[in-house]
């Protein structure tokens, strides 16, 4: 049935409102672009906002959007807001990401950091300001830190995994909503260190060096494969879209999400994210079917 819709036999119209994480936005933008070209529904208008994961949920739980992009799972407080407003939803994992820790190409000493070392660097009130404080084997080189904007899902995820509490972080680093700042900052600073989504590393691999991360099972390098098979621990993360029941009732939204799921491989490729595993894809389909059934 949804194949029919995706094939464009029924002419749909109306809006599909997507908002939320700026990390996930490229994925939904790619979906929207492919949908526009191949979805066969010229009357459907998809818009993708980038209010951030939290901002997205805020609108989502007010019923202002149909789909919310998220770079972390929904928080309890947000869930409660949705419940209070009578908004039911389904969480769908649409891609994987590897939060990549990067240093300058001039950094010849560090190849791998343990989670403990990362924590030592990033924990609240950390006084680590030189690479040799991270590891005495490292040379004396001032450590300059760059990181995600403090109101992003990326920041939440990184702090939760490394420092053990969401939002817990030292504060004296160059924070930016704009990951290009981190790219430029780290690549131009010999002792620089920063983190962001895998895509930004891939696009700038010529300027940056990605560090391996030792989550207890040895050093693992971030890559499509290690992110997919979850061996890049603890910084590989899933990326989500949340679809509301009310949204899914709208034929054009249902049609778009179906298309999103059908074409997920192309979309992920275009957006340069880490693709889903076969198992994840299976879950995705079944979750969506469950959603449709519920509607």
């Amino acid at each position: 049935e949804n194949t029919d819709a995706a094939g464009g036999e029924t002419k749909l119209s109306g809006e599909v409102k997507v908002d939320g994480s700026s990390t996930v936005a490229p994925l939904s933008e790619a979906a929207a672009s492919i949908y526009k070209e191949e979805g066969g529904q010229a009357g459907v208008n998809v818009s993708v906002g980038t209010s951030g994961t939290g901002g997205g949920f805020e609108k989502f739980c007010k019923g202002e959007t149909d789909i919310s992009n998220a770079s972390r799972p929904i928080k309890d407080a947000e869930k409660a807001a949705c419940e209070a407003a009578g908004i039911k939803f389904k969480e769908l994992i649409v891609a994987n990401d590897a939060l990549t820790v990067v240093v300058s190409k001039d950094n010849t000493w560090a190849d791998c950091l343990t989670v403990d070392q990362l924590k030592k660097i990033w924990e609240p009130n950390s006084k680590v300001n030189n690479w040799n404080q991270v590891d005495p084997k490292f040379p004396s080189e001032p450590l300059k830190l760059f990181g995600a904007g403090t109101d992003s899902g990326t920041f939440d995820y990184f702090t939760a995994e490394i420092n053990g509490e969401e939002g817990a972080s030292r504060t004296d680093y160059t924070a930016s909503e704009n990951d290009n700042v981190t790219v430029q900052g780290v690549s131009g600073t010999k002792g620089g260190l920063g983190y962001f989504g895998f895509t930004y590393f891939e696009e700038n691999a010529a300027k940056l060096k990605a560090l391996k991360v030792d989550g207890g099972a040895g050093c693992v390098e971030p890559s499509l494969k290690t992110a997919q098979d979850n061996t890049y621990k603890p910084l590989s993360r899933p990326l989500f879209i949340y679809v509301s029941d009310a949204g899914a009732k709208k034929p054009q939204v249902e049609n778009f999400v179906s298309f999103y799921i059908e074409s997920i491989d192309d979309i992920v490729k275009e957006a340069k994210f880490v693709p889903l595993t076969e198992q994840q894809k299976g879950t995705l389909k079944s979750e969506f079917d469950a959603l449709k059934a519920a509607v």
Partner: protein
Amino acid sequence: MTTSTQSAGSVAGNSLRRGRRRPIESIVQVLLVAAALVSIVTTVGIVIALADPTIEFFQQVSLVEFFTTTSWTPTFAQKAYGVLPLVSATLVVTAIALIIAVPIGLGSAIYLSEYAKPATRRVLKPIIELLAGVPTVVYGFVALFALNPLLQKWWPTDNGPGFQNLLIAGIAMGIMIVPTIASISEDSMAAVPRSLREGAYALASTKMQVSTRVVVPAAISGIVAAVVLGVSRAVGETMIVTIAGGLTSDRVVFNPLEGAATMTAFIANISSGDIPVGSLDYDSVFAVGALLFLITFALNAVSIRMVRRFREVYE
């Protein structure tokens, strides 16, 4: 027409009593007043939009903490609500902008008003006004991708400015306000009556003497008003600092080579981001907004005074 005598011309002794009603006049009056009220409603709206969350904010954060502590980290786990870092960054950027814009703007104005040939002035003045209209997102882009790389390249020492820093934001902002300052001070210099210049020339003054001893002092309140306007644009400017100024706000920064968040940059970043309505963090945006509103309010009051004085000087 109601009176038959309307077109009778110079018939003597016609009554002058109100003959005709003029309903259009009254309708127009009502419309005009209604339109004028829109601006009052706007101000009231701003105050309402700011007041509620701001009051809530200050129920949880004391004014003392807000104004005296030196770390602003509402989005971190260990939250701190001292607004001074945002204020200091705003000050630094504004100061840099003025250091650049005031001399260049004023110099340009003096040249245009006292030295340039009328034909030159006729061409350049509109161009300056034209440049005053360049959208600020353009300056942000240019600061980030063109100016800062240059600055980093030319910086004499190793620990030069970072990718985002207050210096570059200030420079870009300075460049941005040059046209405003130049144009308004030129206006006020042009408004100095010719007769004053002639009086000075007739006393055997040179051009420099006329410019610096007569024209600039006579136009000073207009010039000050231009500078104050420049300050208030710098304080309220958002895009440049958001793009090129940085976001750090955990301590008071006076070193322009570091990046730091100004009040506006904080608002722009947070209000597009990840915070739930009603939370303290959300309220903090409005508290900063209210502070910004008050600061610009004060600046405007100064500027309005200046302009008024400047208008009255020669009357």
